[in-house]
């Protein structure tokens, strides 16, 4: 299940970045983690990578999955990736 709510994280993050929606973890090795938040009409995916991996070197797919999520939620036009 690449998308799953992380309840521990949800409790910790509160509403700092907006309303926490869910977390995406890429498969099979979890090279990419994206925490999704809703801020009014906008949905932001805060994308992070473990130490030693950068956005230009990731080999596991995540862009399509996140966009598909945004499309299904009806926020494709208000969806933004924020990289770390």
């Amino acid at each position: 299940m690449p998308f799953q709510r992380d309840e521990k994280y949800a409790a910790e993050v509160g509403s700092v970045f907006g309303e926490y929606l869910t977390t995406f973890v890429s498969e099979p090795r979890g090279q990419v983690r994206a925490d999704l938040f809703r801020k009014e009409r906008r949905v932001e995916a805060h994308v992070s990578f473990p130490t030693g991996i950068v956005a230009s070197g990731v080999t596991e797919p995540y862009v399509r999955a996140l966009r598909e999520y945004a499309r299904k939620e009806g926020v494709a036009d208000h969806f933004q990736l924020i990289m770390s």
Partner: protein
Amino acid sequence: MPELQVSVVLPYYLRLAEGDYQTAQVGEVVQIVSPLLLEGTAPRTLVRARFNPEDSADPEEVQRRRARCSEQLLRRINRLLRWYRSVSRRADITELTRAQVSPFQFEAIGAAPSVEEWTATLEYGAESRQVPGDRAVLLEHHRQRVQPAV
């Protein structure tokens, strides 16, 4: 893919003439653009560079190549800042992170089949914005999930 122009606005105003500055070997340049003079706003220097990434229809690959362009631009900018700090003797000029120059604006020079894929703004968040609280614990948790397959 036609040329891709990537631009950022620095948090500094550099007293440099508009034009191209070579930052390393031949071909590695950044272009300094005159700042917009807006009343009540401190001027900030706009820097841009052009890249020629191979085109791709795969959004994952496009994202990787756009990230690579932004990393290369930042590397050039930091070389320029090291030089500028030295010649200007301005100790307040320090190297910058991706988050400090974010967002990266992309513009395709010439037509391309997948132009929208390439020209979306690329934004980097500050480290502290990504995971509040005990980030070290969370990252360690994440790191353990990403052990290389044996």
